[in-house]
């Protein structure tokens, strides 16, 4: 079975500007969203308390709201969680007291609303939230730097820069989607974004590896032509892998339970964006960065020459002629 015609070379670079335009619109829209609507930080980063309660019958949300209004938790938010029986109560504050626990207190307050079980109490103090936020930003920037260094070392700096551009493109759009759908940003979302980083990079590297190979073997001299060739040749691999991954992430999204929902949604959006960017956008950056095939070949030839000379010298040395 085959999805794409194997010998056909698609002219991606011809429509380069159209894709760049489309991506720019998405990125700008995402940035606007991030600045206007912003991200909804969950308790991991903002601090606060969430209490997950499961009732034996359909959860009486209005009654819970009324009951809480008479307490100091009046400004807490109550939302359905997964099934009709379950609710999550979000409280902005946290209590640093070990003995007087919000969970115990909630148990007493809600006693009149029916039979229930408190299934989860997560409380993050403001200090810890701040630390986690700092760590998250550190992890994200450190990942980008490490990737930049590794790829510069393995490829060439323009390849590294182009792939980091592509990554920023993917992450920005994924965060735009998180903002658009008001997904609560907690540690798991950070993990999803870092996974995307690795995943989208995977895709880009496979394409770039082909371009690198193409430079050495292709008869074409134009970068655009070579990119078309390489992207076309990797097209079925890129789509196939993305498809299998999208399938499993979709099963996580649909069957993984409410807790994994935000995580799998972020991955789902990210994988689709990541696949799009490695086919249509990543290589474009190479062209924009004025990567020159001739220079690369010249440098390669130079490297080869130096290596040969070294070997020659060594051979001479070993034969004792030097």
């Amino acid at each position, binding site marked *: 079975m*085959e999805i794409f015609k*194997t010998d056909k070379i698609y002219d991606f670079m011809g429509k380069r500007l159209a894709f760049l335009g489309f991506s720019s619109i998405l990125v700008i829209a995402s940035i606007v969203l991030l600045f206007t609507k912003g991200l909804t930080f969950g308790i991991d980063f903002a601090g606060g308390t969430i209490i997950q309660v499961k009732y034996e019958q359909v959860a009486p949300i209005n009654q819970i709201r009324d009951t809480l209004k008479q307490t100091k938790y009046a400004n807490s938010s109550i939302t359905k969680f997964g099934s009709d029986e379950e609710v999550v109560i979000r409280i902005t504050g946290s209590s640093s007291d*070990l003995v007087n626990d919000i969970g115990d207190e909630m148990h007493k307050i809600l006693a009149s609303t029916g039979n229930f079980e408190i299934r989860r109490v997560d409380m*993050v103090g403001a200090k810890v939230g701040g630390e986690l936020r700092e760590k998250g930003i550190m992890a994200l920037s450190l990942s980008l730097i490490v990737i930049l260094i590794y790829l510069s070392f393995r490829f060439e700096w323009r390849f590294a820069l182009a792939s980091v551009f592509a990554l920023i493109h993917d992450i920005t759009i994924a965060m735009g989607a998180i903002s658009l759908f008001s997904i609560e940003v907690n540690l798991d979302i950070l993990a999803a974004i870092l996974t995307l*980083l690795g995943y989208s990079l995977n895709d880009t590297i496979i394409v770039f590896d082909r371009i690198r190979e193409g430079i050495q073997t292709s008869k074409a001299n134009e970068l655009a032509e070579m990119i078309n060739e390489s992207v076309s040749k990797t097209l079925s*691999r890129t789509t196939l892998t993305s498809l299998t991954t999208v399938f*499993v992430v979709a099963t*996580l999204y649909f069957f993984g*339970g409410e807790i994994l929902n935000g995580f799998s949604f972020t991955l789902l959006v990210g994988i689709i964006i990541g696949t799009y960017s490695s086919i249509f956008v990543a290589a474009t950056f190479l062209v924009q960065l004025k990567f020159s095939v001739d220079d690369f070949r010249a440098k390669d030839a130079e490297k080869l020459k130096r290596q040969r000379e070294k070997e020659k010298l060594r051979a001479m040395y070993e034969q004792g002629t030097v």
Partner: protein
Amino acid sequence: MKIFNYRLIIFILSIIFGVVLSIPSLLQTDTGKKISLGLDLQGGLHMLLGVNTHEAVTSKIKTIATSVKYFSDDEELLIDGLSINTDSVTFTVLDADEIPKMDEMLKQITGLDISKNELKYTLKLTSEDIAKTKDLSVAQAVETIRNRLDQFGLSEPTVVRQGETDIVVELPGIKTAEDEKAARELISKPANLELMAVDEERNDQVNTMTSSQAAAYGNVILEDTNNPNIKYLVKEIPILNGSQVIDAQVAFDQSNQAIINFTLNSTGARIFGEFTGKSVGKRLAVVLDGKVYSAPNIRERIGGGSGQISGGFTVAEAGNVAIALRSGALPATVTLLEKRSVGPSLGADSIKASLVALISGFLIVFIFMIIYYKRAGVIACIALVTNIFIIIAVMAMFGATLTLPGMAGIVLTIGMAVDANVIITERIRELIRDGLSIPKAIEDGYSNAMRAILDANVTTLLVAVILYAYGTGPIKGFAITISIGILASMLTAILGTHGIYEALLGKITKDKDSKKWFGVN
């Protein structure tokens, strides 16, 4: 034609390794190393506690004051105005001739910064000693909390230090809200026992006195534990504290009330004996965590170094106080910085949901790969199953913890691990179409694909390592399963499938329709 090649042998060995070591985890056998489930999957309590380390410094200052007082009493050295300010102790030696004696004694206390203004002494801790005291207080708090939880009888409590002042406590054994409350109370109890002298001369004025007036006499006002209206005026510097307690047991008094009998070590017993001998007719306040539990009259010298705390305890309370006293006082109070508690039923639901996702993800990838790549797809699936076994086996071997994000990591690994096989098979297909012979196409296909797979995996691995270093708890679990999955996929998807092709090469080349093996028409 040789069937066994080194790649296949390594692959078979890794299958055996994977299957054998994952059996205990999968079948939950009694023996053998198993994966432990994280708190989010099995239910339990995770807490991050912050130690208020400055309190340890204050209490060390207090201890220094106690020893100065004991020394001067013992040596009949006259001092005046012994008092404690937040970070220093001041007193005046009345007789200049006794200064060398006092200096000699103070020299024995390490980490002291002594400044003298004629006869007036000001004792402070050096900054190194403050840092050391703070550091030690966290280490001691870890030890104390661990001791208490061990004695409380919870299964596998984890208490570890995190960073400079924080402690992580994980209690997988907690199943009910009552257990949780009891554990939290036990952890937070400072259990700071102090035996203090009641200031009999001024005690009758206690109800009209302010705390600053009391401080002027070197006293503090403490409340009774059962009735806050009853107040005692006691000497600020305690005679003894809980660090001298070596044992504490629950007992019952004549009226069948639960009490706690404690035993002091030899130094404590000596100090206690001397004090009670000198203070017959006065009262001794038994103070626990700043509350007076009882203030009995001293009738005679109490030797032997034992005493009791009574104060209307329930049996359970008395038990917890006894545990806390035995395991030592917390050098400083702790506050709750983060708490995550998961009920066991939620954990079970999460396991169920992630297993469904895992199995259905598996099936979809299987069906898809086999339809698309035919037999090459089957071979890729064998590699995939082995990969999962190896992840489980390696995690079991290192006693790693499986968390919910970790489960998500395994699911994701399924999607990503087939990637290597997709790349390889695509390369082989390409070469077959270019007209290469099957053995040559396989050989070149693998070597062509190698570089891209390696670069891609190394970068993902780098990100996983960063995630591990900066993540906390469950997120670390995600980084672990992803990393093991990537490494295992190098073994199974690259080496393993190559070995299978090599072994089957004879069969493939003899097959008239050999291209069908790779789904090429």
